[in-house]
């Protein structure tokens, strides 16, 4: 019996609170199973801040809950400091506008 949407929501909320940078992905850090997941990892590697991946490739209920929560149909889904930031399409543009570095700084300074 799959966990109800309620506990799925809590599971997601706990995860995005527990990690300053969290990526819901296809595959894991050691075995990424999608080009965009690798691209997202490389993106954050350039900034040198720690990030966590949660593999939801084989978890359709959780993927559905995440899609509904963010109104974003694709993976990966990136959360920074508990806020949703889409994927590298968004992050690349934010970086180009100089908005990303300050966000990452304040996110990690508050620790």
């Amino acid at each position, binding site marked *: 019996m799959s966990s109800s949407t309620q506990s799925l929501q809590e599971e997601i909320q706990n995860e995005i609170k527990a990690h300053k940078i969290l990526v819901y992905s296809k595959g894991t850090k050691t075995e990424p199973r999608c080009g965009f997941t690798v691209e997202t990892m490389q993106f954050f590697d350039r900034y040198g801040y720690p990030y966590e991946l949660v593999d939801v490739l084989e978890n359709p209920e959780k993927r559905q809950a995440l899609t509904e929560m*963010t*109104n974003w*149909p694709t993976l990966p889904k990136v959360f920074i400091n508990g806020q949703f*930031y*889409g994927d590298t*399409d968004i992050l690349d543009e934010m970086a180009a506008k100089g908005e990303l570095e300050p966000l990452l700084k304040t996110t990690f300074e508050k620790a």
Partner: protein
Amino acid sequence: MITEEAFNELLKSAFPDADIAIFDKTGAMDHFRLWISSKAFEGKNLIEQHQMVYRALDDAMKDGRIHAVEIKTDIPKN
């Protein structure tokens, strides 16, 4: 796979004033690069603009006609 007309129609119904440029990235008509300019994006941040586009394409993404869309949004200057 989706035709360019169907893709355009989905967007035009949500963004009647939009200027649209669609680029088929792989030749299979299911991975696209999209440029879209519309007044509807005014006052919206980047994420909201992309979410508005995804909402317009929701059906075609759910049934797999579209696998991925690289979105570039714009706001007309005039």
